């Protein structure tokens, strides 16, 4: 009979026991972390006490006293800081939502065009993507704003494009008319908003086009050929056969591009569009409430990212391959 030993033959010393060492390491790491956080908080406490401040959100109901150049939410300088920040948030949402829609449209068109049978069109899409992706977004934004939009002619010599009039006083959509030397009617976008949207859309669309291109490339060649032999036109093939299948690959890629666009909208501050970050910076300069303002910013951008992710995950469930 073999007798099963109840105790191991060799006693493993504790420092060779992976589980024990793991717990010890975690304990040391945790302790280090706690001490670091405690030190930072103690510093914060002392520095705030010296400045005579306490962490509160009470200042948010005080009158802001600064103007915001353009808001969707009715706002005046005597309104509270809270309302100013809300107006900034709504301005950010305005740019993000319209940017998402426009960039997706342009990106899909460019991505699909990169599969065109026409080599000239393919070449143009390639040049566009390579050109835009290798130039910093901020540089593109200041270029659009300072070099392009600020040098537009005055209202009486406005540039006319179909459904669009460009002048120094703003960009007018949907048929504005010249009345007493000023453009009126239609939908007016400020130059700041127009430049921000143009720059963001052109930049993001290049990345979206690459995502779309990857998605379309993932559809097997046989699908194109089968659709072609059924007599479908190229546009029909794309719309009815290829894109629905490509979407499964495209949607997850779009998610991260959308989040980038939302975060990049904060560059508005460089060209004077009053988005959330710009208003927050002014608020900080007036109140000195750095910690609170930063935590608020962090929270809002995180929630914005999570909302985009949640929406895209819902879309992903819709386009996913249904397997039984």
């Amino acid at each position, binding site marked *: 009979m073999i007798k099963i030993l109840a105790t191991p033959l060799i006693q493993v010393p504790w420092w060779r026991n992976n589980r024990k060492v793991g717990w010890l390491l975690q304990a040391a790491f945790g302790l280090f972390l706690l001490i670091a956080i405690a030190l930072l908080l103690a510093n914060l406490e002392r520095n705030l006490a010296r400045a005579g401040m306490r962490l509160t959100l009470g200042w948010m109901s005080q009158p802001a006293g600064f103007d915001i150049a353009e808001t969707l939410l009715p706002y005046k300088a005597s309104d509270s800081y809270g309302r100013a920040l809300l107006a900034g948030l709504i301005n950010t949402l305005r740019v993000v939502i319209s940017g998402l829609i426009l960039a997706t449209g342009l990106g899909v068109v460019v991505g699909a065009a990169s599969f065109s049978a026409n080599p000239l069109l393919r070449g143009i899409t390639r040049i566009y993507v390579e050109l835009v992706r*290798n130039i*910093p977004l901020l*540089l593109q934004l200041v270029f659009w704003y300072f070099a392009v939009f*600020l040098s537009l002619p005055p209202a009486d010599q406005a540039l006319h494009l179909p459904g669009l009039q460009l002048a120094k006083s703003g960009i007018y959509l949907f048929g504005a008319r010249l009345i007493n030397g000023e453009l009126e009617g239609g939908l007016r976008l400020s130059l700041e908003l127009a430049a921000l949207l143009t720059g963001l859309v052109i930049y993001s669309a290049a990345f979206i086009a690459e995502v779309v291109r990857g998605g379309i490339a993932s559809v097997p060649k046989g699908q194109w050929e089968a659709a072609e032999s059924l007599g479908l036109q190229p546009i029909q093939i794309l719309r009815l056969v290829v894109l629905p299948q490509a979407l499964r690959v495209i949607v997850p890629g779009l998610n991260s591009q959308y989040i980038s666009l939302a*975060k990049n909208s904060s560059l508005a501050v460089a060209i004077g569009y009053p988005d959330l970050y710009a208003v927050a910076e002014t608020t*900080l300069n007036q109140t000195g409430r750095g910690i609170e303002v930063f935590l608020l910013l*962090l929270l809002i*951008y*995180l929630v914005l990212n999570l909302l985009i992710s949640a929406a895209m995950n819902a879309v992903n469930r819709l386009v996913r391959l249904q397997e039984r």
Partner: protein
Amino acid sequence: MKRSPLTLQRQLFGSLANSAFTLALFALLVWAGWGVLSWAFGSAQWLVLRANAATLTIGRYPDAQEWRLWLLLGMLTSLAGVSWGRLRGLNNWPLNDRIAALLFVISAVLLPWLLAFGAINQLRLIFLVLLLLLLRQWSGGAWSKAFGKWWALVWGITYVFGLWLIAGGLGLPAVRPSDWGGLVFTLLITSLTLLLALPFGVLLALGRRSGLLLVRWVCVAVIELIRGAPLITLLFVGQNLVGFLSPNGFAPDRVWRATGVLTVFAAAYLAEAVRGGLNSIPMGQQEAARSLGLSSVQTMGLVVLPQALKVALPALGGQCISLLQDTTLLSIVGLFDLLGIARSVLANPDWLGRYAEVYLFLAVLYWCSCAALALGSRALEKRLATNYS
């Protein structure tokens, strides 16, 4: 999608509709090209670049100390020449470097001439390019084999020496970080941030896959919080909040604070790239290494990480390019990187309204740098690619 082979003529002018489309596109291109050219040679005033070439390159670096930058450039050029020659001698060096050499000559001779650098500076640059090309030519031979073993160390020492040359102190007159600017500043901050962020990124990625629960949670929290916030809000922390969190409100120079923020920011993104590489390495590698008797640190450092970093190389290269582009955000918090110094030049009433000229020049500069980084990263991928079959 690969299409059936058609002649170019058929592809462009296959049908009536296609012909019309091609012609319309062509007309559009000609119109746009004509517009740009007639602006560039007509109403554009390039004087703003000539007059501010030095400012854009070195910012407000004191004139009397300029020789230090030249010395650094000379050292970097010689090292680059020797390294280039060594790399070229390797049998699977994938770059066609005649073109690269030509580009060097053009950018170091033609560009300074166009920008009207002083005659002495132009001569210096020509001399440096000659030095680069000669060293490249000579250094394929045996004597540079010794260098081959030590070049990481030599580059490292040169880098630290370069930092000292730029910043001064220890015998040299100190130049404050607020006086650094322009191209030198952008290159310095980008390289410094990358060097610091890569080890942090690897640590964060390893921590995120660690079996230790607490370590994993902390790493996930750090990575996701940083990736969730726009860079500008993080720079805002660096500029405004560091003083609140440090003892007695002490805060280092704004440049160092911004570098710190950029480092943490880049580390979070690099960590995700490295994690992708780590995930692609089969468990068998780790198990095999452990059963050979390697410790867990050896397994990671000698077996898993080298393979993972190779897989992650395209993503890492992409992050380097992003980082170079992200340094432009420093101009928003009032530092004088390339874009920041350009904005301060444009704020000068003498150069009112010369936005298009300056920004287009910067765009060309950034485009070339990013494209060069992309090419370099692709060449490195090719060189490191292992064929297992």
